């Protein structure tokens, strides 16, 4: 047996909670076909998802983990268990033990016997800080947070895997830790081997959004064509002991991996590329180079690392009132003028009925919406009346924040009333009232947070 461990294959089965339930199937098939040590990761926990999960758990103590966990795992659990491919996911959200119980029940149902599930906890900082500490780290808001969870690093995941976990469930961890944890367990990289920790972190960063490194969120017809986007494959990375890795994707799938897709995902949601802060390491992309090894194979090397930060980033969420939205369409000659008149009608009515609903945002979908600001400045500057006057199929969208649901209903009622009280020919009213969460970022000293892991 050689002293250097063989490369580790890491596949990704989901890049967010809303991702495709069947995406992991070709990934696992590829891991099995390629042979050798392999891991499957799932990233399903967005910035706000954890606060929503916390609210669900308050209503039902058995809930609060990824609501569709079973749909993600059922298609691949038997293959992974039988072939020794650990699954690592942050699908525990606000209730990792609840997720573990769900997975153990699924394994029993599938005849897989007792499933060894590792659970990483300690991200919930509200349970760990005293009032003085809380006062030191919190931001300008004074109300009670719904949730406050620190981004934990990769050590807990690695410990669970070393102890023989077949599945590792976490709550909030840094997304790249879902890959770095297995790499630490596999290669035994030292806790201060900054270059390798950074390389593993960047491997995780490329994996964590699923198809986004394989042609998803990328295709632009005529400029960036992607083959068979409907069946876009999810990524499979081959990481070597020295930290260099090859980005590839599941076999017999659509999509593509090339230097363009890797560059886009490399920089995605990164601010200073020389200082990407994570709980495990500060990664530096300044010297990264890419090399195409073949179709859908890109070698990434040159990632550097620096000592990890002293504090853990923590996202605190607060109840944030309601978002009220209403839409109606106008078509045919003079459609834009009628949509603008409808916007004026709603604005006037709401100013009288609900003066607290400010600002009231109006978009003309098809003329100007996404690029516009709440005040509509961009739309006025860009289009004026001339080109917009030619549009014959536009949709008015009215939106406002409300502190009370009853206030939000006033907006949706006024848009609905445009049917009979508004301009000619309005059709297709739809409306939505959505509860919102506000958030703050806190930076909590590591010593105040105790990360724990256990095998269930």
């Amino acid at each position, binding site marked *: 047996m050689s002293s250097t461990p063989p490369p580790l294959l890491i596949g990704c089965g989901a890049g967010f909670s809303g991702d495709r339930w069947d995406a992991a199937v070709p990934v696992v098939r590829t891991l099995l076909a390629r042979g050798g040590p392999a891991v499957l990761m799932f990233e399903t926990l967005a*910035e*706000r998802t954890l606060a929503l999960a916390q609210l669900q758990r308050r209503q039902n103590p058995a809930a609060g983990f990824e609501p569709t966990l079973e749909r993600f795992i059922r298609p691949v659990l038997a293959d992974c268990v039988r072939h020794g491919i650990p699954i690592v996911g942050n699908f525990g959200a606000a209730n990792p033990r609840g997720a573990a119980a769900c997975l153990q029940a699924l394994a029993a149902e599938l005849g897989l016997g007792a499933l060894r599930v590792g659970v990483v906890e300690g991200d919930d900082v509200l349970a760990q800080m005293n009032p003085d500490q809380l006062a030191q780290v919190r931001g300008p808001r004074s109300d009670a947070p719904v949730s406050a969870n620190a981004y934990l690093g990769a050590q807990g995941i690695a410990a669970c895997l070393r102890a023989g976990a077949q599945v590792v469930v976490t709550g909030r961890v840094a997304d790249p830790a879902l890959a770095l944890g297995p790499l630490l367990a596999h290669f035994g990289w030292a806790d201060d081997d900054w270059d390798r920790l950074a390389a593993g972190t960047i491997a995780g960063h490329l994996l964590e959004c699923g198809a986004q490194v394989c042609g998803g*969120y*990328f295709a*632009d*017809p*005529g*400029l*960036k064509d992607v083959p068979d986007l409907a069946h876009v494959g999810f990524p499979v990375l081959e990481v070597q002991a020295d930290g260099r890795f090859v980005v590839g994707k599941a076999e017999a799938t659509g999509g593509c991996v090339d230097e*363009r897709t890797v*560059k*886009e*995902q*490399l*920089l*995605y*949601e*990164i*601010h*200073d*590329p*020389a200082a990407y802060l994570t709980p495990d390491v500060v990664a530096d*992309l*300044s*010297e*990264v*180079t*890419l090399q195409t090894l073949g179709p859908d194979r890109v070698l990434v090397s*040159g990632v550097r690392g620096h000592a990890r930060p002293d504090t853990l980033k923590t996202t605190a*969420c607060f109840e*944030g009132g309601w*978002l009220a939205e209403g839409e109606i369409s106008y078509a045919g000659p003079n459609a834009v003028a009628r949509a603008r008149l409808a916007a004026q009608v709603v604005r006037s009515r709401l100013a009288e009925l609900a003066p607290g609903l400010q*600002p009231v*945002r109006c*978009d003309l*979908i098809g003329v100007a*919406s*996404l*690029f*516009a*600001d*709440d*005040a509509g*400045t*961009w739309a006025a*500057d860009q289009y004026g009346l001339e080109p917009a006057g030619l549009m014959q199929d536009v949709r008015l*969208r009215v*939106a*406002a*924040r409300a502190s009370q649901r009853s206030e939000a209903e006033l907006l949706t009622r006024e848009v609905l009333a445009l049917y009979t009280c508004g301009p000619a020919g309005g059709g297709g009213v739809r409306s939505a009232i959505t509860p*919102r*969460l*506000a*958030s703050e*970022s806190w930076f909590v000293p590591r010593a105040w947070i105790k990360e724990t892991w256990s095998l269930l």
Partner: protein
Amino acid sequence: MTQSAPIATTPAPHAMTPDTATVPLARLAHGRTGDKGNTSSISVIAYEAQHWPLLVEQVTEARVAELFASRRPTRVTRYLLPRLQAMNFVLHDILEGGVNDALNLDAHGKSLSGLLLTLPVLTPTVAHSVSLPAPQGGRRPAWGGPAPA
């Protein structure tokens, strides 16, 4: 290098000669938007290494700040990655509170790379004819930029 608000107006390179053409940045580069809180990060990646110096010269903090002026960025920072022929723009406080607070349909600002890629860029027509991908079907580019010379 950091551009602070209020944003100064910088003239776009409109001067055209027979040897140059103004094209939208989308013809020379691609990009992707990410968000963290109220801050947007947008990458700009050259399709061809030969266009990298031109992008460094023309896709500046000042011009990007001007393009996004209606979003009132408090700070616009550009980071260069010459080995990847890529740059990363970080635009602070442009998401009207971000995904938890914005009234915009696209509360993440995911579409904003589409705005950055409308930036007019002055190119030598030789480079333009040799290496730029042609718009499909002879139509005007879908992003509404100037028709090819």
